[in-house]
């Protein structure tokens, strides 16, 4: 190795140690960090977008045409989907087994994007109204679960001692009862309706949330800033709201996200076994249950709401997964 020596090479440089040499990693705020991790997860972003799209459709979709979710035009019964643009490529062209049904019945000038059901109701409108209702039930259940679960977990964890033990015992016994049994029995007793289904979902839905909240509260209780507040004489209520709550919010949001697909599923499950909303009300579950009756002959009737349901559940699960990883990449134990 040939080195060219300079004149004052072998003189001491006396350079002071400067910390400017060290390049520190750019520190970001916690929420920026979470956002960054979340957006890196392609699946989660796709899931999020899908949900957004579906919600938009459920809100505005029904207004695209003039049909309502219960308007019956019996002559139009059982027409397959016909989409004006796609029909040229051969998808959704109103054809079953090679027969153009619209042509046969003399309806060349009308098109039902999702087709119609056996009573001639527009499936496009019914699907989106149904999605609205399914989302509503799931959202309501999730919201009330959150409130009950958070309160229960907070009280149980914060006060500890005998209160905690008793409350946890109750949960242990309640968990032993299979959810399906309880939900089915309840809706059976209360007769199916939006409120009864929501109530049934509440019976056991809050348990997961309360467990997570309690675990967080227990962890936080040990930390010093709680002790500091207490020493300053802050009341219990203030401590719970100002110190504990902000720290558990992240977990709570994630748990709620996870509970939505389950609620959507339960509602559709109930409809399928005959305990769903009564006609002409439509929810995704009701549509699937109705469509099933003729599913070999007219598969589109059951396929369309099923696909919407599957996409919803998939998207929520993937998004919740992504959120969980974004908040804490190590938190895999939920």
């Amino acid at each position, binding site marked *: 190795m040939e080195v060219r020596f300079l004149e004052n090479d072998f003189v001491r*440089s006396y350079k002071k*140690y*400067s910390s400017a040499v060290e390049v520190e990693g750019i520190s970001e705020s916690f929420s920026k960090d979470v956002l960054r991790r979340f957006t890196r997860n392609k699946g989660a972003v796709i899931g999020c977008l899908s949900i957004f799209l579906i919600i938009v459709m459920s809100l505005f979709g029904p207004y695209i045409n003039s049909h309502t979710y219960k308007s019956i035009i019996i002559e139009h019964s059982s027409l397959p989907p016909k989409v004006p643009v796609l029909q040229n490529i051969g998808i959704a062209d109103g054809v079953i087994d090679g027969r153009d049904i619209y042509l046969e019945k003399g309806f060349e000038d009308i098109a039902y994007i999702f087709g119609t059901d056996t009573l001639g109701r527009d499936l496009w409108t019914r699907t989106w109204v149904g999605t609205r209702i399914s989302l509503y039930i799931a959202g309501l259940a999730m919201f009330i679960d959150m409130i009950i679960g958070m309160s229960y977990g907070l009280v149980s964890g914060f006060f500890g001692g005998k209160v905690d033990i008793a409350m946890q015992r109750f949960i242990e016994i309640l968990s032993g009862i299979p959810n399906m049994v309880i939900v089915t029995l309840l809706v059976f007793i209360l007769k199916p309706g939006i409120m009864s289904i929501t109530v049934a979902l509440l019976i056991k839905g809050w348990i997961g949330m309360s467990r997570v909240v309690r675990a967080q509260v227990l962890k936080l209780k040990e930390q010093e800033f709680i002790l500091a507040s207490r020493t300053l004489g802050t009341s219990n209520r203030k401590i719970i709201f100002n110190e504990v709550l902000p720290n558990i919010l992240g977990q709570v949001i994630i748990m709620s996200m996870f509970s939505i697909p389950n609620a959507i599923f339960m509602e559709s499950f109930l409809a399928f076994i005959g305990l769903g909303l009564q006609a002409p009300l439509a929810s995704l579950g009701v549509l699937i249950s109705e469509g099933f009756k003729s599913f070999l002959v007219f598969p589109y009737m059951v396929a369309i709401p099923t696909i919407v349901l599957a996409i919803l559940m998939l998207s929520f699960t993937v998004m919740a997964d992504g959120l969980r990883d974004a908040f804490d990449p190590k938190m895999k134990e939920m």
Partner: protein
Amino acid sequence: MENNILTIRNLDISFTTSSGSINVIRGIDLDLKKGETVAIVGESGSGKSVTVKAVMGILSNNGVINDGSIHYNYLDDHGNATQRDIVGMRQKDIRKEISGKRIAMVFQDPMTSLNPTMNIGNQIIEGMRQHYKTPKKEARAKAEELLSLVGIDNPKKRMKQFPNELSGGMRQRVVIAIALSCDPEILICDEPTTALDVTVQAKILELIKAIQLKTKVSVVYITHDLGVVAKVADYVAVMYAGRIIEKGTIDDIFYSPRHPYTWGLLSSIPDIDNFEEKLYSIPGNPINLMNKFEGDAFAPRNEYALNIDHRVEPPMINVGGRHEVASWLAHEKAPVLEMPASLKRRIENMLKEGY
């Protein structure tokens, strides 16, 4: 070169990470002679563990050996003298011929090094069965002997126990027993005592020394603790930022260190006899190898740096016998610089007291 068992030359290793490639080992030369104990010293991140992992062939998947050779001289299964370059070997072959059989390793954390669902006996005999097809009965007998050798009482009972039934110190002894099970020539110990209590530390070090006397195995110690080095090493290599910056016999390093980093390391050992002086610590933090730099990696923290240290990386310069330094201060053109006075005094005291 004759009684070298391990000859490392120009070893250069990089890791690919999501933020780019890091050159963690930047050209290392090191020899291990038969029966010798070599200690590799350095801060975390200096590359000491990576070096021995390359020797064992257990470099992680994102590691790439860019250049260099690790020549291992040994007697093959038929008794013929062979030399192989571990760098070129396939993982399969390294595991078949070298790992466990000729070179064995002891890891740092005994709590996680043992399989929690396999009993002690099976973990010890596994190597023997794999390499020598030793019949079970014979292997078990040898395992019990090994357990006694490493100082574990009641070997028969211990064989059937599981790792979570043993204390940390005992687990580490088991790990050593496993390492010795196939009669290796070289034992690599990666910070074997760091995770243990101080009292247990001393015992383990004594154990390894005793085993060395008995079996004449050559040992490589990785450590950041100069106290350990003083106790066990014959030859020392000091690493910084992926290079060996000074190497020599233990006397060379402790009594006539030449590199300012080594001065810093030695100065930062607390000295019980000296009450007045502040505890010395090398300013700043180890360099981030992700960033490009010119010259000597240690220059920014080196108060004895010469101008050329900021321009050109110093080569290894021989300063007598097996003592080599990677510092421009050892160059003929460099001014003669003495080690810090406090260090000088301390060494003189040590010499006087006959260490």
